[in-house]
């Protein structure tokens, strides 16, 4: 990027214009390449309309909602302690496992009536959220807090250590292969079809759980006393402590919130995909972390936006290019976005990257 822009700058006026144009619109152009390309090829091809792209979009958004929930956990934790919490993906995985286990405990099955099912799910959701949230808080207490004054990368390694431990827990829990669970909500069943775009039960569930949670989260962080303490600590821990904010409690709370969202994502994932396995957290963690960085790490809206964009790109690539290439495509996009906008889509100046 730097190398490319330097020669362009030499013929002063025109080069500057090109550079301004790239820095203003380059990112948007990059993001639009794939959708626009497929829109044109759909319109001119056999299908003649945009219904396939619309389906991709709906599926992508509901998948992206799951990534957004996980990504918020990364972004909250990064914002406050500047740590890539590698164990976060595994916390999400444990959320899925707890959900699957709890369905069995309270006796939810595919033939459960709708009313009972709704009640059951409403009970399971807080259970999963609490399990994941407490797990995340515990990890912070055991693995990260003793290392606060250590070199910056030391907690990264304990995070990886916890991620291995939790994966092993998952491996012992349900075995080493993909485990099918009851398709409680009949997730691939089409609910409504608008102009050729099918909205399935799974999509509705994902959005119905995610949107209220996101609103609640934003309200909590923006409005409550504890949320204010979190923002203050993220901005300047030292000053926050001087103002009488309990930094330790605030950090624990952040991990709790992040873990709870990951737990919610876990239950949606279990219901949506209907297969779970111990390795799902690894992929989800990478994708969600990518989403958080793409949106500008430390920024909650950015994490949501990044999650949705990645969900859409993934769906496009799964559907059109082949799912074996999806990770490569997602990461390619990440590199392009980082090249055009180094602080992420909605990135603010964080303490370190100031």
């Amino acid at each position: 990027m730097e190398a490319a822009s330097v020669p362009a700058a030499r013929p002063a006026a025109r080069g500057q214009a090109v550079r301004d144009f790239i820095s203003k619109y380059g990112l948007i152009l990059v993001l639009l390449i794939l959708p626009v390309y497929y829109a044109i090829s759909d319109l001119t091809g056999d299908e003649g309309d945009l219904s396939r792209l619309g389906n991709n979009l709906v599926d992508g958004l509901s998948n992206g909602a799951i990534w957004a929930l996980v990504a918020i956990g990364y972004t909250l934790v990064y914002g406050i302690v500047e740590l890539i919490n590698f164990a976060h993906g595994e916390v999400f995985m444990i959320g899925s496992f707890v959900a699957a286990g709890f369905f069995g405990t309270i006796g939810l099955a595919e033939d459960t009536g709708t009313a009972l099912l709704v009640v059951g799910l409403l009970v399971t959701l807080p259970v999963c959220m609490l399990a994941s949230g407490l797990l995340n808080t515990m990890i912070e207490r055991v693995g990260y807090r003793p290392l606060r004054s250590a070199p910056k990368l030391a907690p990264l390694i304990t995070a990886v250590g916890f991620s291995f431990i939790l994966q092993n827990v998952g491996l012992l829990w349900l075995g080493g292969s993909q485990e099918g669970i009851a398709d409680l909500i009949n997730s691939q069943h089409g609910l409504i079809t608008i102009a050729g775009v099918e909205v399935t039960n799974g999509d509705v569930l994902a959005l119905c759980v995610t949107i209220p949670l996101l609103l609640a989260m934003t309200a909590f962080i923006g409005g409550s006393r504890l949320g204010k303490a979190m923002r203050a600590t993220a901005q300047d821990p030292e000053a926050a402590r001087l103002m009488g904010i309990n930094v330790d409690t605030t950090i624990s709370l952040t991990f709790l919130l992040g873990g709870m969202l990951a737990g919610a994502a876990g239950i949606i994932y279990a219901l949506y995909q209907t297969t779970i396995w111990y390795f799902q957290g690894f992929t989800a963690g990478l994708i969600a972390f990518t989403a958080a960085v793409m949106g500008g790490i430390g920024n909650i809206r950015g994490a949501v936006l990044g999650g949705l964009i990645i969900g859409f790109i993934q769906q496009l690539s799964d559907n059109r290019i082949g799912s074996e290439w999806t990770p490569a495509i997602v990461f390619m996009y990440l590199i392009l976005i980082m090249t055009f906008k180094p602080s992420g889509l909605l990135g603010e100046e964080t303490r370190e990257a100031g």
Partner: protein
Amino acid sequence: MTETATPPEKAAGHAGEKKPGAVPPWAEKAFIPVFFIAFAALPFVVDSSGGLIFDMTLALAYVVMALGLNIIVGFAGLLDLGYVAFFAIGAYTMGWLGSGFFSAVRNEEGLHVGVSGGVANLPGIHFNFLLVLVVAIIFTTIAGMLIGLPTLRLRGDYIAIVTLAFGEIIGRVAVNADEIRFSSLPIVGGPLGDFFGEEQVVTAGRQGITPVDKIAFPGLDPFTSLELKPWYWTALGLVAVVLFVNFRLRDSRLGRAWIALREDEVAAVSMGVPAVKTKLLAYGTGAAFGGVSGAYLGSFLNTVNADQFQFYFSILILGMVILGGLGSIWGVVLGAITLSFINFWLIPDVLNDVPGKLGLEFDMTQISFGIYGFLLVIMMILRPQGLLPERRRAEEMTHGEEVSDETLYTARA
């Protein structure tokens, strides 16, 4: 071996009583021959065909890689989570230039450069190992600089994610390129297809390129998989070269520029350190070591398999660097040996028998991953600064504590 070095280095770590600079410069130099003589003599002590020497050879190859990553992360302070990319490129260089993989080259006669003996009659491309090393260094240096380019404007953990992305992309390509034919590539497809043959694919994916040529030095018989001593000494030789380069670089103008950039980029640049060039050189040098080790491992393990190139590999190497002590050369050597022994010897060979001896019906291999994670956590909590921290960092840590009465994060508000 490392025990001999621990006392003076440890004194540097605990700077409380003793000044960190108190280790005399000759101590480090005097330690080098001790280290190498002890290591070179090891195969005579242990069974030279057994698993232990295999593990030790592997550990030495990882030392080379960890030292490479140490240049990027430890010296220059650029967090690289995609180091596996360089391992992959090095290993594929070995696989491509030292195996029967390109069987159709020159009408199945094969292309041979600097090889003799049985290999010289096989189809495929067969280069001498030393030539492969040179090519691997060239490839990985270029790749390192290319990966470095988009990260130049980024800071901190954004660099981590971009390097991670590159590592994952390379890993993906390694897995999936067994469906891509050279002849079907755009633009260059025609001539490449003519050269390699219409059906030739780019990688062997999860099947792996195997067998790979054994290392053969001019004037010596090729190595065999039965006699591991020459492999071990070759790896030790590579470690020696890499250590030498590391020490010379650390104390050079370039090394000081890396450390200056790591400590404060703005200050370094305003003092005239060329940030772009310095960073790219860090990526390039670090990558080259990864390529050397990758090419060696490709031949030693006798396979170049896409499953080897996963994200965990980057984390394993990064763990070695951080555990040993970021930026500390001997620390990284110790960290690499420790972690690879935990990974390849302690967990599979030693701990495996424990439940059996206790009379428990329990398979340890099932929880080997968890044990590894547990050990990582314990080691990091007990010694967060690394086993043998770099003097400069040790000093910073203690010095910093003296200045501010209480660091923020130790505060219990």
